[in-house]
């Protein structure tokens, strides 16, 4: 049994302009110790997906309208709110983007990490656990950091504190939502390597939410490409980069590599993402897709298994089954 299994998950947001289908029938598995990256652009629904798994979506305006989130077979969506408390932090922890806003500016580092621990452990055990968590997150001289405030730390160290808080209770799954987006390149590379190290050391499963295929290439075992609330392709990392099956995956890959066309221009994905209040009946990528045909416009998306652990939601994939 997979550690985490998400099945046909659907999330809607109610807005003034109507219902937005932010997550539209997403299914995937996460095994113990595995790193899965969900890659997508802004508005693709990747953050809503992460928050829905932890039941942290603001309801309203959001609403989970269907599907399952099975943690070792138990559906988290069926739990009472208080039954979620021992799940968050101890089983599944989250690292948010923007360490500057994820930390409380008026509490010391020690107090904030202790808060995460205290919810789950007895009072006496707190201090050593806090120090261990800070050390584990690669923060040098943790004793000295305990009494410092977030503004006294660099952005890189602040993100390490957020990681320490997430690790403090020994979770099995870490969900990291754009953990390095606000960071400088050298700091970013070190943080990704830390996550890779911790995964091997602690047997942690990582669900990495990102828009950056460079981050995916450095960190993930498997990748799920998200577009307009749907997973359009899931694949082990290497085959996806070598030979993407979905035209959107190819477009994203070319754009992030700054690949040039024969005319010397950069390859682009034409147009912009669809309006999710009124999604087209067929493939959401059809209006931008260079390979689109009549079927793509009218028929619902198929899910094709390609072998080798790959799946693609496309009428005319670039790689055959």
């Amino acid at each position, binding site marked *: 049994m997979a550690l985490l299994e998400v099945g046909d998950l659907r999330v809607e947001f109610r807005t003034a302009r109507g219902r937005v289908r932010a997550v539209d029938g997403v299914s995937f598995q996460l095994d113990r110790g595995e790193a899965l990256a969900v890659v997508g652009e802004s508005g693709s629904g990747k953050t809503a997906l992460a928050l829905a798994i932890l039941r942290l979506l603001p309801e309203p305006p959001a609403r989970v309208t269907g599907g399952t989130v099975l943690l070792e077979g138990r559906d988290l969506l069926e739990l009472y709110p208080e039954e979620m408390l021992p799940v968050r932090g101890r089983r599944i922890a989250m690292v948010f983007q923007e360490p500057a806003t994820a930390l409380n500016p008026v509490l010391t580092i020690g107090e904030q990490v202790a808060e995460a621990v205290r919810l789950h452990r007895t009072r006496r055990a707190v201090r050593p656990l806090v120090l261990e968590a800070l050390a584990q997150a690669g923060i040098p001289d943790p004793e000295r950091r305990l009494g410092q405030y977030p503004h006294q730390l*660099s952005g890189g160290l602040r993100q*390490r504190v957020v990681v320490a808080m997430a690790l403090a209770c020994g979770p099995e799954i870490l969900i990291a939502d754009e953990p390095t987006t606000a960071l400088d390149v050298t700091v970013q590379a070190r943080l990704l*390597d830390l996550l890779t*190290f911790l995964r091997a050391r602690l047997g942690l499963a990582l669900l990495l939410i990102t828009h950056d295929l460079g981050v995916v290439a450095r960190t993930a075992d498997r990748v799920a490409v998200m577009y307009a609330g749907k997973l359009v392709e899931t694949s082990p990392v290497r085959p996806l*980069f070598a030979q993407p099956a979905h035209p959107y995956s190819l477009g*994203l890959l070319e754009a992030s590599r700054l690949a040039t066309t024969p005319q010397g*221009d950069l390859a682009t994905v034409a147009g912009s993402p669809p309006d999710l209040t009124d999604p087209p009946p067929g493939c959401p990528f059809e209006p931008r897709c260079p390979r689109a045909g009549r079927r793509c416009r009218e028929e619902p998306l198929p899910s094709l298994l390609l072998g080798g652990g790959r799946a693609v939601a496309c009428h005319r994939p670039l790689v055959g089954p």
Partner: protein
Amino acid sequence: MTVLAGEGLVKVYGRGRPALDGVSLAWGERETVAVVGESGCGKTTLARVLSGLLRPTEGRVLLDGEDVWAAGARVRRRLPRIVQIVFQDPSSALDPRQSVWAAVEEPLRLHHLGSATERRREVAELLEMVGLGPAEARRLPHQLSGGQRQRVLLARALALRPRLLILDEPVSALDVSVRAQVLNLLARVRRELGLGCLLISHDLAVVRHLAGRVVVMHAGRLVEEGPAELVWRRPAHPYTADLLAAHLVPDPARRPPPPDRPPAEPGGLGLDDRSAGCSYARACPRPTRTCLRRRPPLVAAEGRLCLCHRPDF
């Protein structure tokens, strides 16, 4: 022929450490120079000083050889007609109550250029140049996508037909698929109008695509300058080498082996505790005692500059 140059530029905000600490840079007609560096390195301050928006604490900004701040208001008023800046974050750089049309027309009105009819024709032409139609012209910023907003900012900057364009992180706020569209637009506009560009970016892929010459900054200082290809292939400054090594390539085959120790985040490497010596000495893989004590010299070799006691030419 040098159009715009900075000589020994220093900028100090309040009583803090200099944001810009003795930077010299010359910029020729039709040349594209990239400034790379991480947050706090002074690259945005450099852009603002060179565009005449900020007065340097020390040093000179030279426009066609004339000191902009010594020559008086007449020369400074000419500066926006020659140097224009496209700010980062297109969502905050536009007035939320101003339509696209008004935003692009504003610089023409402020500089009393053309009659109303001529301005109308000019704005239509500018919008067409950046790929925006009459439908978008009536919209307000919140009704536009990030890529469209960036196009509006570009049209506005081009309105005065400048010779040099400063682009401060022009695509960092954009999605990957839109980024390529805007980069293509920038390349086309630059070619068609014969513009010079100063590209400020932390994204090495973007820099490599657009710029012929590159300037690397660290802690307010210029640490390396040279032809982009050469700097890329054989970085002379250890900081440049570290920056290149940290660049995430979208290719899993080039993934480094997993670390066997937790990579620590160097603490206190912030900008506040700089020693008298090299700003990179504490993070440098091969520092000497001299590096910690004495400010490094600017060494020139092979058409390159490197601020280092032990440059790796």
